[in-house]
């Protein structure tokens, strides 16, 4: 795949996809980054990632999305994935109550390993399977409110709300970042065209030099 070497962006945001195995994380990623859905997808082993550059609130954002394996046993090696993540999409399957029940365990995982300011969005996926729905929208909605998460239901298969979900979380991250930059002492406008990786914690911002190949 040829990639533009001069791809320019204002910000690089790292977002992780988490949630139980089989809820559709990989297909949400492929729908968002390549507009593809694969009925015969392999289970994710370890981690995969993909990027897409898009406009959010008038800025060019490069979204780097990390897709992780959902099985419990893998948590031993997945903690590294949370490093530097600004957002997390916590996915459950609306047809599988167990996956919704486990959302609280994933939240704990985030609290233990991710930055405390990470933006979290709860996603109920597979709304196309209407006849199999087992988690009510209202239940998830009120849970999200209680936990202070944003919430949306999606269908990666029918491409419903996928774009919106990513747009929402990226915009949210951008709002937080821009507020932070404004209120902080650092000169805000220095690196706008270079693009940079931003740590929510506000520790030393790592400059993102473009990979020269």
């Amino acid at each position, binding site marked *: 795949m040829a990639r533009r070497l001069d791809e320019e962006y204002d910000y690089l945001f790292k977002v992780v996809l988490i949630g139980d*195995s*089989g809820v559709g994380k990989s297909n949400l990623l492929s729908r968002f980054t390549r507009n593809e859905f694969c009925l*015969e*997808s*392999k*289970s*994710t*082993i*370890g*981690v995969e*990632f993909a990027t897409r550059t898009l406009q959010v609130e008038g800025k060019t954002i490069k979204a780097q999305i*990390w897709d992780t*394996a959902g*099985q419990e*046993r*893998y948590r*031993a*090696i*997945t903690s*590294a*994935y949370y*490093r*530097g993540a600004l957002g997390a999409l916590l996915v459950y399957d609306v047809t*599988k*109550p*167990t996956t919704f*029940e486990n959302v609280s365990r994933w939240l704990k995982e985030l609290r233990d390993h991710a930055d405390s300011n990470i933006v979290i969005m709860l996603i109920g996926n597979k709304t196309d399977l209407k006849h*199999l729905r*087992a988690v009510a929208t209202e239940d998830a909605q009120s849970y999200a409110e209680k936990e202070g998460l944003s919430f949306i239901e999606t269908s990666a298969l029918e491409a419903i709300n996928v774009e919106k979900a990513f747009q929402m979380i990226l915009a949210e991250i951008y709002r937080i970042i821009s507020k932070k930059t404004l209120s902080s002492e650092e000169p805000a406008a220095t690196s706008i065209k270079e693009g940079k990786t931003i740590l929510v914690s506000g520790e030393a911002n*790592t400059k993102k030099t473009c990979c020269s190949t």
Partner: protein
Amino acid sequence: MEKKRISDEFEPGPLPPTRPLDRFGFVKQEQSFSPEGLTKSRSAYEREREERRVRKWRKMIGVGGSDWKHYVRRKPHVVKRRIRKGIPDCLRGLQLVIYETSASELDIIRDISRTFPSHVFFQQRHGPGQRSLYNVLKAYSVYDRDVGYVQGMGFLAGLLLLYMSEEDAFWLLVALLKGAVHAPMEGLYQVGLPLVQQYLSQFEQLVKENLPKLGDHFLREMINPSMYASQWFITVFSYSFPFHLALRIWDVFLYEIKLPFEKLIHALRNFPEDAMNPDTLLPMAYSVKVSRRLQELKQEYEKRDNESPHASESSEKQVQTVTLKPLKS
């Protein structure tokens, strides 16, 4: 045979007269001791009630038993009450199986169609490939309850199943993981994935030493080997490498029983267009000498890792603990 004998004995005619059966298939007793209520045909009301119960049960069990555990946790009293009222007969078989279904089993079922989904042998739902894969994984999860089933194992089993019978694939998996003639590799799948962590640490160090520029670059970009190499190790390269290359790695791996760190280093060093051609990659890769350093790095890792005894002991210290046994004694 049975039928014939019976008909010889009781009836000279070709077929015995059909006798009424109860709903379980037993020939109805006409004697007076059978309670009247049971033999009476069921009323429309009863049928309707039965249907309602079946619907409730189906919802409670979920597809393939996927919701059962959830329901038991959430509403134990409801479950108990319903079971005491009797399991609907059409679901009894499934339910009796579910009682004994482990969490591993549900995981296995979920992943069966997601293992080499584009290979013709594994494509057909419930076809011979998927069934064999299920059998091997289920058998292993029962054989080694500590490890159970871990995502990634399916690709090992799947690769083996393309070349051998179910039984052989199972025992080869056991031999690999338990260490029949070499150090066991079960650490790839044990809690904490200790062997994966060891390999990642060795690999990271090798990259730093052999390819310092790349190592620095990865460090600056916060790229840790667990982000790109864990799937290589967890599936012994059967997951993401081009299949013909994976097979060539396995040819060597099964004979020498060590992971081809050389290959990885080489693949990272220069990536010519035909790098994925095994006849190019393998000879070049073996020209990179890492075995001795690998051993040192392993010892260093184990020293560092000593405070968590669980991680390396079980997987590394005992060799030759298991011998291949036939399935049937």
